[in-house]
């Protein structure tokens, strides 16, 4: 097994094992009895799982619950995961299902408008906007204008590495090849919208 503690060199992202590969190494270590490895896996993947919950209609509070519940469930079902690097997809599917379950309940009471039904509306306060450059504001608005499935795919895929795209899009219920090795429909739509926008400056 390759050591997972070697950090990728800045600017050489491809030399680092992908997120799925690193996750698999942590899971293997945990199954071999190194208990702290589970904590490292939690630290590594929770920011991604947060995006999954938020793009599936969870309020902030519901997203916290969905992500936490998923980790507890992983420990109970860890033996079901035959291939350690598949843990990434397993977790994405589990958060998605948990998010659907909780939002179905929540919709009956209140519906969170700050969720990602329109990500352009997340924290539109002056504070949130001043921390963004015009380029970033343009990007966020363009993402907000995409169909929901594309919005979800791109926002989640942005948090993983390229070799993981297939595993993650499949987990999100999108066909293989929705993104990578070709650009794919969603990213193409976004890119064409950006190019057409005079406020978008190609960095």
């Amino acid at each position, binding site marked *: 097994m390759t050591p997972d503690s070697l950090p990728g060199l800045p600017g050489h992202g491809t030399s680092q094992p992908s997120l799925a590969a690193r996750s698999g190494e942590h899971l293997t270590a945990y199954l071999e009895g190194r208990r702290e490895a589970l904590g490292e896996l939690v630290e590594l993947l929770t920011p991604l799982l947060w995006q999954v919950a938020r793009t599936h209609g969870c309020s902030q509070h519901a997203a916290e619950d969905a992500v936490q519940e998923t980790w507890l469930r992983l420990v109970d079902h860890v033996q079901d995961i035959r291939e350690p690097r598949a843990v990434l997809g397993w977790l994405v599917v589990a958060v998605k299902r948990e998010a659907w379950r909780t939002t179905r309940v929540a919709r009956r009471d209140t519906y969170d408008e700050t969720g990602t039904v329109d*990500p352009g509306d997340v924290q539109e306060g002056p504070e949130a906007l001043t921390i*963004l450059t015009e380029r970033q504001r343009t*990007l966020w608005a363009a993402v907000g204008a995409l169909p929901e499935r594309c919005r979800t795919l791109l926002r989640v895929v*942005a948090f993983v590495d*390229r070799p993981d795209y297939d595993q993650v899009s499949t987990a999100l219920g999108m066909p293989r090849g929705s993104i990578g090795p070709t650009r*794919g429909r969603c990213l193409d739509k976004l890119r064409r919208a950006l190019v057409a926008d005079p406020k978008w400056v190609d960095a």
Partner: protein
Amino acid sequence: MTGTDTELEPFDSTDEGILRDLREVASRLDPCPADLTERILFALTVQALQAEVAELTSQTELVSRSMAPDPTEASTVTFSAEHLSIMVTVVREDARHTRIDGWLTCGSAEVEVDLSDGRVETVLADAEGRFVVTGLPQGSSARLTVRPEEGRPVITPQFSL
């Protein structure tokens, strides 16, 4: 709704750059709460130990900082679980250290002090349930895991030292 030619082009460095920017914007506008991983780790520990989480029942400042510059300032925190109660007095030792004087209603038990910096101290409470832990970093926080001779372990929420 047929596809465009450009969607079949290979994923290039511009695409990579767009996703990198998207990650940054999403992390800023909709960040994962900073303490979420810590709470998940706590929940996982509770589950792994099949432990009971004690409830904070009271918290008293015996001598408040503003009333007296007395170095003996102390505070008392009590927790309760189904079969045991825990009382902890946090006493200042010197400028940088605090001591905890604890008492468990269950008598003898192993007490683990988990400090927020990752350090772990383990002591045994005597037959009367008394235990003392000294030299703890002042201003940090801790939680206790109590393993009674019988029954489930009990974990307290964090309290400050």
